[in-house]
C-alpha cells in the first residue's frame, strides 16, 4: 500500500520549450501582463496536466478554480485543450463549500490546514488538485509545482492521485525520473 510516501516525479520543463513564434507571442503577452518568467510555463503545465487527466464524464468547459493568492497564475486564462474544450478560470474562497462545480483546483499560498481542508473535500469527487506552493507536501494535492531557477518541475503524490477518483495517464508518471 502506498503511504504518504510522496514520490517525486520531477519533470524538468525548460522555459523556452515553446516554438519560437509562440514563444515570441507569449513573451509579448507576458511583458504586457506581468514580469513573472514562470507564468507561461505554469500555464502550459496546468494545461498539459488537464490534458492527460480523465474525468468519468469529461467536463466542458473545464472549470479551473484558484483558491488563495497565486503568484504564477497570470497565464491561466483562455487555455484551450487539444480537443477544443476551453479551460475557464475563476477564483474561489478557501472554503470546502466553494468547491462545487470545480474540475481543477489550483492552490495558491494557503495555510496548510486550509489547503488540507480543500483537498480533503476534493478527494473522491473528481477534482484535479494542483498546489503552487507546498515544498513539504502537506497540502495533499495531487500535483505540487516546484520552482527552480530557470526551470519548473513538479512532484506527484501518488496516494492523492489514486484517491482522487480521476485517471491520470501513466505516461505522465513516466515523464519523471524519480526524485
Amino acid at each position: 500500500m502506498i503511504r504518504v510516501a510522496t514520490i517525486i516525479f520531477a519533470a524538468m520543463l525548460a522555459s523556452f520549450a515553446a516554438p519560437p513564434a509562440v514563444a515570441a507571442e507569449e513573451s509579448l503577452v507576458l511583458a504586457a501582463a506581468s514580469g513573472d518568467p514562470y507564468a507561461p510555463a505554469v500555464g502550459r503545465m496546468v494545461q498539459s496536466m488537464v490534458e492527460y487527466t480523465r474525468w468519468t464524464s469529461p467536463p466542458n468547459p473545464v472549470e479551473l478554480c484558484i483558491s488563495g493568492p497565486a503568484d504564477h497564475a497570470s497565464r491561466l486564462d483562455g487555455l484551450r485543450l487539444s480537443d477544443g474544450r476551453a479551460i475557464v478560470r475563476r477564483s474561489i474562497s478557501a472554503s470546502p463549500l466553494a468547491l462545487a462545480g470545480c474540475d481543477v483546483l489550483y492552490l495558491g499560498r494557503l495555510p496548510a490546514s486550509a489547503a488540507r481542508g480543500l483537498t480533503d473535500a476534493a478527494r473522491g469527487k473528481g477534482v484535479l488538485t494542483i498546489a503552487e506552493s507546498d515544498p513539504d507536501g502537506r497540502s495533499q494535492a495531487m500535483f505540487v509545482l516546484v520552482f527552480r531557477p530557470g526551470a519548473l518541475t513538479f512532484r506527484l503524490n501518488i496516494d492523492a492521485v489514486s484517491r482522487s477518483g480521476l485517471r491520470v495517464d501513466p505516461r505522465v508518471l513516466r515523464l519523471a525520473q524519480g526524485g
Partner: protein
Amino acid sequence: MQRVSPNQALPTLSQLLARVHLRLILFSVVLAALSLLVSGTIVIRNYASRNLDLVAKTVAYTVEPAVVFGDKQAVAEGIASVGAVNGIDRVAVLDPQGQVLAEWRHPHGDFHSRIEDAANRFIWPKPAVATISRNDTAIGRIEIYGNSEGILRYALSGLIISLSCLGLTVIATRILARRLQQDVIAPLDHVAEVAHAVRSDRAFERRVPSSGIAEIDRFGRDFNALLAELQGWHAGLTSENAELARRATHDALTGLGNRVLFEQTLADAIGQSVRSGQSFAVLYFDIDSFKQINDRHGHECGDSALIAVAERLRQSIRQADHAFRLGGDEFAVVLAAFADQASISAVLERVDRAMAQPYRLPTGASANASLSAGVAVYPDDGVSPQDLLRRADANMYQAKKDRALSGAKGKNHA
C-alpha cells in the same frame, strides 16, 4: 587425325575431374552463399524495417506527453531508452515546424563508423517515420534511422561461413577426386598398362581385370576379346612363320633337311671341329638304279622309294647326326664328332642293314632299295665344305663303280 606430341603436357583424367568438380562446387557454393546472403539480408532488412516502424510508433506514443509538457529532457530520455535497442542508428523527435526537439545517436566506434555510415545510407536511405498526435492533431514527428550493424554482422558471419564451407568443399573435392581416381582411373590405367604391355612386350596373354564400373567393364571385356583375337592371330602367324622357315630348310617329300640346311650344318660342323679339334665325317648316298624304279613303276613308286630310304636313313643314324636329301636321289649325312673309323663303319653297316628290309610300294608290291655311299672325313679329306662334298661324292661314285663290277657277278636286284 590429330596427333599429340608426347612432350605436350596433357591434363590427366583426375586433374580434369578435379577441375570440373572444383568449378562445379565453387559455383554452387558461391551461388548458394550469395543467394542466402542476399535473401537473408533482404529478409532481415524487411524485419528490421518493420521493427523500426513499430519502434517509431512506440516512441511516438511514449514521448507524446513529454512533448505536450514540453519536457525536452523527458523526450531525450524516452528515446534514449529505445535507442539502446539494437538496429537503431538515430532517433529524432521533431516538432511540426521540423525543429529537432531531441535526438539520440548510436555511439559509433571510430573504427568502422565510415563503413557503417556508408552501409546505413545504402540500406536505410529513408527513416521510419511516425507522427506524434494528440487528439488527431500532429504535435510532432519521430524519425528513426536504421543501423546496419546487425545486417553487416550477419553478412560478415555469412561470408565467414561461406568461406569455411568453400574450404571444406575444396577439401571434399580433393577427396572425391582421389576416390574417383581410384574407382574410375585405376581401371582405365589397367587397360592402358595392358595395352602398353601388349604393344611393347607382345604380352598377348595379358588380360584387363574386372573393374566394377559397367562402362569400363564392358570396355575391358571388349578389349580382352580383342586381345584374344590378337593372340590367336599372333599364334597363327608365329606357327606359319615357323612352318615357312621349316619349309625353306627341309625337303617337303621326305621331311629331311634340304641342301640349304645341309650346307649350314656342314659349315657349323666345320666351325665346331676347328674349335674342338675333333674330326667328323660327311656321308654321301644315292639310290642304286633309281632311274629304273621311276621308269618301271612310275614316279609315285619313286617317291615311295625316296620316303622309305629317308626313313631308314633317319633310323640308322645317331641322335647327334643329321640326314639330308640334297636333291633327286642324293642323300647326305653329317656324322657328329666321332672317335675312330669304326663308328663310321658302324653307321654304314646299320644303313645297309636297314636297306635290306623291303618296303611297300603304293601298288601293293614290295621292293628293296640299295644305296651307294661315299665318305669324307674332316680334316683328312678336306677342310672346306666343297672339298668334303666333292670327296664324298667321288668316293661314292668309286663305290658305285665297284658295286657295278661286283654286281655283274649277279648280285643286283634293282
